[in-house]
């Protein structure tokens, strides 16, 4: 096997990086802090490149769609056209003040973005009507919880039921919800810690495409 294809090399590098970050976090040693800060700078630079890689991947995917005339290929033409338009007009004025760019951002991007979110809201409301039907104990708990949590957000409910209208929703959020979220966060943090430990020990190999 070629030297550069050996999996031990990336595993060792990842283990050293993980160790530096962990030791910095738990010891606060100035030398380790300097090393960890430098690594973070590298990560930020890499993240900047990731944006570029994303753009290249997008262009590759959509040019292939157009070449092969895949279903909806005309949508790919629009994507490439607008990507180019935003890129060129954005580079012409880095303060995003170019009038063409402003038109695209204000009248297309922002409106469509808001519309997509609003569309989600309509389906949520439809979901309340269709999915929240009390068929068993689980759906009863779900529906009752939803009812009181929505009431809690509707200040107008106070007009009909007084301040007591908000008490059940507040209790649900402050007691069972809080306990559940805490358990979830602690469990996921322990999971991240285990992942770090597996990376440190070279047991985690998913990121180098060799499984494990």
């Amino acid at each position, binding site marked *: 096997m070629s030297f550069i294809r050996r999996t031990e090399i990336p595993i060792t590098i990842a283990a050293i990086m993980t160790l530096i970050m962990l030791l910095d976090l738990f010891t606060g040693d100035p030398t380790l802090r300097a090393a960890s800060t430098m690594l973070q700078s590298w990560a930020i630079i890499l993240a900047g490149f990731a944006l570029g890689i994303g753009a290249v991947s997008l262009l590759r995917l959509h040019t292939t769609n157009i070449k092969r005339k895949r279903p909806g290929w005309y949508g790919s033409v629009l994507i490439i056209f607008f990507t180019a338009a935003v890129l060129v007009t954005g580079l012409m004025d880095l303060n995003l003040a170019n009038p063409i760019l402003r038109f695209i951002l204000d009248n297309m991007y922002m409106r469509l973005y*808001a519309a997509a979110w609003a569309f989600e809201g309509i389906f949520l409301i439809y979901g309340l009507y269709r999915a929240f039907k009390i068929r068993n104990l689980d759906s009863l708990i779900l529906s009752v919880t939803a009812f009181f949590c929505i*009431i809690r957000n509707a200040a*107008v*409910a106070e007009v009909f039921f007084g301040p007591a209208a908000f008490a059940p929703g507040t209790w649900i959020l402050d007691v069972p*919800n809080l306990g559940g979220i805490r358990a979830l966060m602690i469990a996921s943090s322990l999971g991240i810690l285990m992942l770090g430990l597996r990376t440190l020990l070279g047991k985690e190999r998913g990121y180098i495409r060799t499984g494990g």
Partner: protein
Amino acid sequence: MSAKKSLMYRLSNVPHQVIGALTLIVIALPYLMPVGIPLKITPYSEQFKAALDAVPEGGNVAFSLDSAMGGTTETGGMIRATIKYFIYDRPDVHIVMWGMHYDCVLVFNTFVADVLEDADYGKEVAWFGYIPGTDAAIAKLSDDLKGILSVDFYGTPVAQLEIMDNINGAPDFDLLLSFDTYGHADSYVGHWYERYKTKIAIGMLSGSIPVATMRFTAGQIVGFCGGVKGAAELEALLKYPGPAYTNYDVMNVANLFAIGLLLFGNITYFLTKKEER
């Protein structure tokens, strides 16, 4: 009997197009005929306001615009009210702004830029634009702020910005505000609070309130402001009414409609079941 059953069945299976159309009408009504539902200020919004008030005279505030443009229907009002509060009511406070979401420049131009025209740029306020890298960038900002922010959004070297003279990282800020729709606030808690105990207040979507409540009760953040309701309350508390107050009416009516649908769906479902039996 069968016609009756058929009607009940149809009422328990109303097509989504009809529900969608009704929702649109219900949402449009408060815009056409504002109801002016009285606002009840919750303790959480009061604590968020208290966190703003607690910034000492001449203090430094980090203002992180982490909202996607689509999320500004909820966070936009709180961003605008907060920046107005600092620029008009607390001009002594220094504001350093950046964004962890790539929409931050749009959010800045829409909700902040015109307010900053009344501030002394470079002395009272500085704007650094989008910073890629999310968690790594947030960690780096806490340790070595100038390592990332070497020039501002307009290309001015940081050495020429008077406001940045004594700011090098998280310990130099009296408060960090993150108006967030994507979970960046969690990274701030991890790197800014856990390491330096920086005071953090978060403005976010209503869906993030459960996590924020947990962080607040654990003492990791000093306040939070969630959703349209929180934004409207903050606008009222800071005395800068804006878009959230208008949306509050809509949200109330939409919530009542949602409750109505939930009850209607269940009533028709049980009546249909009864008929079937």
